[in-house]
């Protein structure tokens, strides 16, 4: 009996693990930067100039920008992780602000978040939370990105199961709930 139950559980697990995605949206680094360029106004309003994203191989991402009136160069390195479906986390591994003026990293991160939220498409489906990490430094933090609503209006139950960075490409893939006949 025990064997039978474990066999059933194993089969179930295998079925879940081998179930494929229903859609996949793959974007190149160039395409992402084209999108960012089209959002220039919102970025400049938040004090962000020359905003550029680089996808660096396995899970890693870099952002380069100039901040504020003085156009202070900023370099941010981060890794992207999937927490659960629709929930993703960015861990900031390096936050470099060049120049002599003391500048709050959190302030810059919040300016980036605010400029993203001004885009009506992103504002309706994404919730971004910046949180401090339990480290000695006050400046170490992570970013939670939660998809609170399906980005596609006609598919309310669309799920984003994974965000994957592979070389210079970002892939979004997931599932839709299926109504079985």
């Amino acid at each position, binding site marked *: 009996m025990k064997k039978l139950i474990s066999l059933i559980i194993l089969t179930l697990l295998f079925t879940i693990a081998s179930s494929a*995605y229903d859609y996949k*949206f793959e974007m*190149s680094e160039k395409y992402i930067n084209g999108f960012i360029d089209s959002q220039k106004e919102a970025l400049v309003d938040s004090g962000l100039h020359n905003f550029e994203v680089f996808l660096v191989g396995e899970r890693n991402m870099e952002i380069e920008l100039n901040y504020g009136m003085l156009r202070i160069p900023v370099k941010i390195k981060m890794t992207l992780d999937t927490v659960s479906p629709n929930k993703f986390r960015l861990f900031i591994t390096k936050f470099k602000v060049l120049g002599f003026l003391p500048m709050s990293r959190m302030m810059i991160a919040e300016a980036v978040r605010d400029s993203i939220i001004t885009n009506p498409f992103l504002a309706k489906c994404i919730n971004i939370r910046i949180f401090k990490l339990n480290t000695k430094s006050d400046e170490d933090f992570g970013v939670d990105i939660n998809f609170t609503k399906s980005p596609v209006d006609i598919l309310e139950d669309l799920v984003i199961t994974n965000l994957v960075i592979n070389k210079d490409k970002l892939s979004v893939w997931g599932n839709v709930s299926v109504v079985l006949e």
Partner: protein
Amino acid sequence: MKKFLIMSVIGFAMISSFASSMDRTIYLEQLLSEPAANSRSITRDDIGTRAGLTSNEGFAVTFSEIFINTILKQKVSDEFIKDIKLYFRQDKYVIDGIIYFEMLELDIPFTVTGKVTVPAKNVISLDVKEMKVWSEGSLPTDKILSKVVKYLNNNRTLNDYLTLSYETVANRYENFGRIKLAPKLKEMLPSLPDIGISGVSTANEEIIIKGK
């Protein structure tokens, strides 16, 4: 005697409709299990790492049959399009469904197969290579198909995202047409005015749309 006659007419009608639905199922199964003309097999990419983009392309969207058929079932089926399903294989697409043909007041099952092409930027064409209408008598396949496309184009959900049209292509031996899909990209993605679809390919159980 009268009863017997009525019963036998009903019986005959049931048998013929059952036989036609069997034909349709067998035909569909054959279409979908046929190996591709170009036999290098492509399987579903489950880990999401296939590098499908060339340097000329900015994005690629892959939709599985399940994704498309979920939309069709939940959002498109209505009193005219009673049932519609799309299938993709490496070298073809198959549309199988049932429409309500007002003129004859009949449900008409149909199966269409062909290739997906991109004849111009932002235009996806479903070139029809073969079409079957599963009903008694010889109904004009071209007319049925143009009706299907008309119904689909009138569907409010689809109309928000696509404009569909059907054109007959005169051929020396047969008539086959093209179902043209023009996605309303500006309405869909207002923040990306320069977006353009440059290529579409089909693989086993999925369709891949690429663009800049």
